[in-house]
């Protein structure tokens, strides 16, 4: 798993916030949880329908201002509304029904292929080099 740090613009506070981010080359778009999107005042665009493992997933599109190193880009993203119960570890009666850990987007974002495509070739190579020990 490639984990890097990026900064995302917080509209209400007019400043950047640092986020731990998982780079997912299999994701078309960047993705983040609704509770974070709301807090940093991300614009809400039209719905979008995507395929996930076993069926369609309808999400809301947005645009993120993402700073990585010296570059800043406007990148399309999707907002995922995660049930509040999934933002915490599983309780004993939930075992066998869900993973024990909180949902990964509780404290992170996903950087999709569209983020990598906005970067310089050097930055892109540097990030993807994390896959090679």
């Amino acid at each position, binding site marked *: *798993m490639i*984990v*890097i*740090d990026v900064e995302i613009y*917080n509209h209400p506070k007019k400043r950047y*916030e*640092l*986020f*731990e981010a998982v780079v997912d080359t299999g994701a078309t778009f960047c993705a983040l949880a609704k*509770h*974070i999107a709301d*807090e*940093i005042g991300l614009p809400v665009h039209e719905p979008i329908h995507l395929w996930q*493992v076993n069926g369609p997933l309808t999400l809301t599109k947005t645009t993120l201002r993402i700073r990585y*190193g010296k570059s800043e880009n406007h990148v399309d993203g999707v907002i995922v509304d995660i049930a509040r119960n999934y*933002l*915490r*570890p599983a309780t004993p009666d939930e075992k066998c029904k869900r*993973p*024990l*850990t*909180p949902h*990964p987007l*509780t*404290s*992170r974002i996903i950087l999709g292929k569209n983020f990598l495509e906005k970067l310089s070739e050097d930055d892109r190579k540097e990030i993807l080099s*994390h896959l090679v020990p």
Partner: protein
Amino acid sequence: MESRKWINENLPKLKEKYPNKTIIVCDCKVVKVFDGIMNPIQLNEVARQICEGKDWSYTFVSVEEEEYIL
């Protein structure tokens, strides 16, 4: 960037020392530990106070997470 690199390189040790805790790392040292997972905006607020002007990063040190992601 350096603190992120340090976290990634030391994750196996961090899992032993800070299981299922959120840590803030500043200049490659753990400077703050929270129980469980934290809202990243709140972490930024704390880091602004204790890591001002320094290189910093954070992570939720999940012991089991990587076993559960498709």
